[in-house]
């Protein structure tokens, strides 16, 4: 039996007093072997990031390692002083972070940053450093390595930056790599490439990799073994195939059941009705860059239309233009027969009711200073209800979205992300809109919460006969809620059809690429 390269024994990290639990990580144990990818998977707050920072000897301020060992070969890393640890970081154990842009120094070129690692850990001469930096960049499958080396981080894309970060982590050929959500900030197609690269590191170079993620699709694509964390404890650890297909712990089962399927749900077929939303020749530009090119959409009541695309494709701009948070350069957006774009600002204020929006960020979309009841009721008041009516409508809406009536006087800080999103939904519904736009409204949520909010939206949509425009980057989410799907690329609609058509038999090459890049496609 080959000994593990990294062995974690009964590791505990305490949280500061007054937190909701005493430990960020409690009694965690696992082994990592060379040439293996161990995925640590869990929802937000499960302690997976704290665990990874403890392995690097850098727990966040206020937290401290209270027990256990982190054995790197024979050495226990836990009692090491910061100065001793500095020699190990980068040389024996290296880390890849979530935000590639934030982990690179914007003031230095890529070459300078990679060479800096050699300066810290090795005594190569200048030519040798440059040669090795170039070799690393080449091995990352980056196009035109010479240009990349001379570039500053802002001149590279997110995926390129992440590959540079990986190159830096690999500079000293460390045995252990710790990757904390390394692909979460990337688009799916870029994610697929980076995952492929990380797989190569394992297969060709035999690195042992701890891969932290919240995404079971990614786990299915890359993991050899999986550890599932909940409330700071590892509840299940085992072979990837076993954990994914025959999970033992109830929590793992629940998490896996919540992963949205790529197969579209059966949706009731409705008789053709006149569209309540009709977008014609909508176009917009930032300077000379066309971000929306003659968008045409049409949506009858009681249907859900998903707009799918990667970052920068114009889908959020489209949402904002439809609801007039930005003024489009031209086109029509008819809601229940009225062209929203043609209204004067005072006329618009009275028609705002008809088209409402649920925002992406559950934390940024509610004013932290205002109580949620009056916030929702204000919408009803603006839509023309009396004060008493607004109050009672708000209370029934709170119940409708699955919150308690007693939540009326509470502030957003008292709610979790999923609950806040429910508040946001109630706020939009208080106006009794004809069309609801959901802009990445479940993207920031954990998978189990996401499933609940999606179920709520489906339920509301049927009960209230709402027309919903659902904007998302996630094909799985789109499959779970849409009647129709529109695929956008570079400001244009490249494919449209029913959910079954688009996901089952994609026509456009870009749609095919998106589908192939969807993580965990073979498993879920």
């Amino acid at each position, binding site marked *: 039996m080959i000994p593990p390269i990294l062995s974690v024994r009964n590791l505990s990290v305490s949280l500061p007093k007054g937190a909701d639990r005493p430990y960020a990580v409690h009694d965690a144990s696992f082994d990592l072997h060379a040439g293996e990818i161990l995925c640590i998977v869990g929802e937000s707050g499960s302690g997976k990031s704290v665990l990874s920072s403890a392995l690097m000897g850098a727990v966040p301020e206020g937290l401290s390692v209270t027990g256990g060992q982190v054995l790197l070969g024979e050495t226990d890393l836990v009692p090491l002083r910061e100065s001793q640890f500095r020699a190990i970081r980068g040389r024996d154990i290296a880390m890849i972070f979530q935000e590639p842009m934030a982990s690179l120094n914007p003031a230095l070129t890529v070459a300078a940053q990679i060479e800096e690692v050699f300066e810290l850990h090795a005594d190569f001469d200048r030519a040798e450093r440059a040669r090795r930096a170039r070799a690393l960049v080449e091995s990352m499958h980056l196009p035109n390595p010479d240009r990349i080396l001379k570039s500053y981080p802002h001149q590279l894309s997110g995926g390129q930056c992440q590959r540079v970060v990986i190159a830096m982590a690999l500079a000293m050929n460390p045995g252990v790599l710790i990757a904390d959500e390394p692909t979460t900030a990337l688009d799916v197609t870029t994610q697929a490439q980076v995952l492929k690269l990380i797989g190569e590191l394992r297969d060709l170079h035999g690195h042992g990799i701890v891969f932290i993620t919240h995404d079971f699709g990614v786990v299915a694509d890359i993991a050899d073994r999986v550890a599932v964390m909940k409330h700071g404890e590892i509840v299940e650890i085992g072979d990837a195939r076993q954990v994914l297909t025959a999970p033992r712990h109830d929590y793992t089962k629940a998490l896996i059941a919540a992963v949205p399927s790529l197969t579209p749900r059966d949706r009731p077929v409705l008789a053709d009705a006149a569209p309540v939303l009709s977008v014609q020749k909508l176009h917009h530009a930032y300077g000379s860059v066309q971000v929306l090119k003659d968008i045409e959409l049409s949506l009858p009541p009681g249907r859900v239309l998903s707009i799918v695309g990667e970052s920068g494709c114009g889908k959020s701009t489209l949402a904002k233009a439809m*609801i007039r*948070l930005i003024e489009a350069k031209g086109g029509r957006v008819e809601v229940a027969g009225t062209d929203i774009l043609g209204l004067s600002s005072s006329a*618009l*204020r*009275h*028609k*705002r*009711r008809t*088209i*409402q*929006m649920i*925002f*992406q*960020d559950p934390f*940024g*979309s*509610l*004013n*932290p*200073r*205002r109580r949620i009841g009056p916030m929702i009721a*204000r*919408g009803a008041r*603006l*839509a023309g209800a009396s004060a008493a009516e607004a109050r009672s409508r708000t209370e029934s809406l709170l119940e409708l979205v699955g919150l308690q009536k007693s939540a009326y006087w509470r502030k957003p*800080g008292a709610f979790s992300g999923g609950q806040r999103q429910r508040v*946001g939904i109630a*706020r939009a519904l208080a*106006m009794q809109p004809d069309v609801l736009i959901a802009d990445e409204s479940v993207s920031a949520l954990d998978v189990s919460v996401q499933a609940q909010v999606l179920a709520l939206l489906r339920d509301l949509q049927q009960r209230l006969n709402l027309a919903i425009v659902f904007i998302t980057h996630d094909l799985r989410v789109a499959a779970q809620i849409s009647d129709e799907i529109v695929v956008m690329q570079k400001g244009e609609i490249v494919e449209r059809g029913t959910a079954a058509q688009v996901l089952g038999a994609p026509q456009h090459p870009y749609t095919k690429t998106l589908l192939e890049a969807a993580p965990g496609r073979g498993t879920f």
Partner: protein
Amino acid sequence: MRKAILPYLANPVVVVGALLSFGWLFVAALAPWLAPYDPIKTILPLMQPGAANPAGGIFLLGTDMLGRDILSRLIYGARTVVVFATLATVTAYLVGVTLGLIAGYWRGRVDAVLSYLANVVLSFPVLVLYIVIIVVIGSSPFNIVLAVTFGSAPAIFRIVRGITMDVASRDYVAAAVTQGERAWRIMVFDVLPNATGPLAVDFCLRLGYTAITIGTLGFLGLGLPPPTPDWGTMVNEGRGMAIAFPHLVIFPCLAISSLMLGLSLLADGLREVSDAQGRRT
């Protein structure tokens, strides 16, 4: 509410600052009961601190060259400074906050014009500005308030404009817009409450500056017309004889410093506590 106040009371800087500031407020409010003598009545000139009054009682801080009791003048002077500094600061805030909200929320041309005007005013040294204004329009309580407003409002405008620009880009403001909320209501109910933290700190500091300004104007002979008791005027009147009779100058100076110190400490403490709270959330 109690939870919100507690961390402030646990901070020694806040407590000392509040004791000094509110101490002077208390003195100002209770001046008629605290002052041993009438502040403008001439009794005996140039008595040293602690000297006995032949008519009974003592002059705790001495008397000035016109024979007025310095302690009583300081106590009544607190009224002048508290009333006018507060009035001037509040007016400056009304103007600065209103214009800052408008410029930060609407941006574009409104912002360009207002910011330009603010920069013009800010490019003058404040004291020169005050002197010019007072010399031109004359010294009166109303004119002092006007001058301070004119001089301070641009700085407040800049703070509020910056915060407004930041807050106005948040989704909850977009949500209010899509509800059909009127712009002024968004500014007042969504934007302004999120600016209260930095503004409270600035208010305390600015109150202190204004108190000093009123003192300085008094010292330069541009303050409130005599015989109104005013700390700055007292320092100015005692200046000529300060070597022989230091008490004429020292006590009013101490009064000004302690009020200024109190307000500065209060501002620092408020910032410390609210920063700490900001980090926690």
